């Protein structure tokens, strides 16, 4: 018989040690994510430095009316996520489940707004390759901006989608009573991922929508 409580895995001495290791693992993954998005941010920085007028003109074709509310939605989701982790920590099963579902719903809301925005971009002929038309000067450089816009926001939307799926899985686990106060670290970790995705958007929003003054 193992001489430790069955709450933590056998390779750890204490539950706290296991929590710290779990948390550290997620932070390591997030560090690689910073560099994953970082390469694209590097491309963006180069483009904006080299073609400031084209990037500003292209940015002004995006709608703050989509990007602004979407930023607010993600900030709300981070708030409910933080509260969900707290509820799980205190062993409040129903509250944690409800807050996890609410967080996922905010994520879905974000994706719906993004979908409408992509549709508008398509109608306004701002989709490189498929449907792109630019009247002003520096059409190729404006197209570069929209390439970066779609790759950055697309990659981000993919992260939100993955986050929503994991949140729903954790919500089901929580509902079934599989996440006790001792195992709340599961919620803490998906929270770290979700907050990170929020932070990425916090930077994408001004970089893409708020170039220069409008």
């Amino acid at each position: 018989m193992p001489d430790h409580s069955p709450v933590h895995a056998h390779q750890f001495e204490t539950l706290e040690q296991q929590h710290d290791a779990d948390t550290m693992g997620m932070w390591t993954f997030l560090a690689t994510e910073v560099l994953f998005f970082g390469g694209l941010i590097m491309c963006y920085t180069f483009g904006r430095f080299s073609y400031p007028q084209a990037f500003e003109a292209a940015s002004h074709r995006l709608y703050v009316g989509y990007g602004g509310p979407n930023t607010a939605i993600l900030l709300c989701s981070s708030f409910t996520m933080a509260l969900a982790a707290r509820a799980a920590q205190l062993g409040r099963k129903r509250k944690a489940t409800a807050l996890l579902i609410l967080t996922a719903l905010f994520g879905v809301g974000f994706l719906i707004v993004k979908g409408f925005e992509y549709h508008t971009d398509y109608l306004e002929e701002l989709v490189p390759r498929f449907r792109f038309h630019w009247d002003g000067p520096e059409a190729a450089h404006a197209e570069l901006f929209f390439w970066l816009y779609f790759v950055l926001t697309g990659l981000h939307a993919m992260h939100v989608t993955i986050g929503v799926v994991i949140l729903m899985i954790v919500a089901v686990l929580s509902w079934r009573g599989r996440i006790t106060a001792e195992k709340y670290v599961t919620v803490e970790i998906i929270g770290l991922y979700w907050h990170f995705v929020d932070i990425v958007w916090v930077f994408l929003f001004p970089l893409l929508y708020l170039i220069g003054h409008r």
Partner: protein
Amino acid sequence: MPHTIVPTKTYVAIFVSLMALLAITVGLAYVDLGEFNFAAAMTISVAKAVLIVAFFMHLRYGQRLTWVFAGAGFFWLAIMLTLVMCDYATRP
């Protein structure tokens, strides 16, 4: 290290601050500050990120080793941006 239970009040305060910063950043975008539009927007984004990382992601309450892991990604990103732009920005 025992995990701190953060009071709900703190989370509410952070959330309100984040929404206020969002309102400020959108508002500032409609004011012509010249070169400072970019600096202002980035400063506000960094402030928002710090609030999220410190409180929502509990870096403030965690062990010091987590700081190293969290800082590493951003440090390498800074190296990449700085060195690449040192090249492009100094080309004749």
